């Protein structure tokens, strides 16, 4: 790993100021960034740790939504969101392994936007708002392809606001070695319709399955998806599964998620 300067501010304002320096990058839980640095795939001059900022931690229910601080670890979401949004808590409780969940954060996961990460599907299916140090971004505008987001250079996710659905479930087909989602489907039913977001499938990262949303909004039952199918043409194809295999999984997992919701 190349060396860098390490700073750990205690407020969002100090972090934003530090990130304005040339070559400065934010560090949240580091469960993806540190392995990347070890492989010398990244060479920051300075890492700005976000884990010492109290105002970026914690979970609170606020007017039908959950507001989760960007630096809140997965384990805290698994424990504290359970009473308000059980599907989200269950998702958080199955990311990686216990030690990863004690360090990795929701803000870090959403900023990285790994195409197989779990949280992007929850944020997109919930119609979440990504709150940064300078603005609020709707999830529909935030995810912009594999590892790509609407965040500007030096912009940090301070919180995520997730509307709580009437019913929801996330079903993940585990890639057992990495414990990422080989494919994962998050289904959320709101008063005004159903949202279905899929991770670990498309080459463009997390996406909404519009046809499934329309079918489930009319009839929230696994059978409603019977006649639908997704093309495998633009799906991730690797040694764990081909594009058509992932396309098939999307439907199977969506049906399971509806049944579990």
């Amino acid at each position, binding site marked *: *790993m*190349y*060396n*860098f*300067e*390490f700073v*750990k501010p205690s407020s969002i304002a100090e972090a934003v100021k530090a990130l304005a320096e040339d070559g400065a990058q934010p*560090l949240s839980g*580091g*469960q993806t960034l*540190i*392995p990347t*640095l*070890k492989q010398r795939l990244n060479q920051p001059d*300075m*890492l700005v*740790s976000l*884990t010492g900022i109290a105002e970026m931690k914690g979970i609170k229910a606020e007017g039908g939504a959950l507001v989760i601080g960007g630096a809140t670890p997965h*384990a805290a979401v698994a424990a504290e969101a359970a009473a308000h949004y059980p599907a989200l808590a269950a998702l958080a409780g199955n990311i*990686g*392994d*216990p*030690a*990863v969940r*004690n*360090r990795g954060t929701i803000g870090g996961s959403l900023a990285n936007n790994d195409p197989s990460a779990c949280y992007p599907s929850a944020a997109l299916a919930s119609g979440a708002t990504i709150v940064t140090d300078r603005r609020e971004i709707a999830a529909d505008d935030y995810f912009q392809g594999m590892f790509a987001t609407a965040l500007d250079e030096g912009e940090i996710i301070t919180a995520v606001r997730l509307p709580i659905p009437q019913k929801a479930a996330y079903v993940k087909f585990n890639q057992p*070695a990495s*414990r990422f989602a080989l494919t994962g489907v998050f289904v959320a039913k709101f008063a005004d319709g159903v949202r279905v977001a899929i991770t670990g499938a498309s080459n463009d990262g997390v996406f909404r399955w519009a046809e499934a949303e329309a079918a489930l909004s009319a009839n929230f039952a696994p059978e409603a998806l019977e006649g639908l199918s997704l093309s495998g043409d633009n799906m991730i194809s690797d040694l764990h599964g081909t594009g058509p295999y992932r396309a098939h999984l999307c439907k199977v997992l969506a049906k399971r998620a509806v049944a579990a919701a």
Partner: protein
Amino acid sequence: MAKVSMTVNGKSVSGEVEGRTLLSTFLREGLGLTGTHVGCDTSQCGACVVHIDGKAVKSCTTFAQDVAGAEVKTIEGMANTDGSLSTIQQAFQDHHGLQCGFCTPGMVMSAAALLADNPKPTEAEVRHHLEGNICRCTGYHNIVKAVLAASGQDVGQIAAE
């Protein structure tokens, strides 16, 4: 270089570290606490698990400076004050929960974190909790048995393998 201070196994310690110095490196090379093992160095094997403020984390995937001021507990801090093995360590010995022993420090630290949160886990819960700790010698059967025994549950019905 920067100075970092923390509490390790109840003692205040400090040392000079770089930005990139991992907690595992600081513990092993800075403090000589080589009980924390680095197996894969890619965040997958769990041999380097220690507790930071009571939570199990991978010390090879945490920067030393990021845990300045924290309470760190390593395998060296697990024995009883009179030097005898703790309940979990003794259970690993009694139930042959190790072969080469390389993964054992991480297994013990992860098991201790589990039992602190969930004093009577089921076998399935133990296996789920140990997903991030990889053993390449024994398979996991006797490790799981040791953790269940350490929780005070009867493991007589679980066959040895």
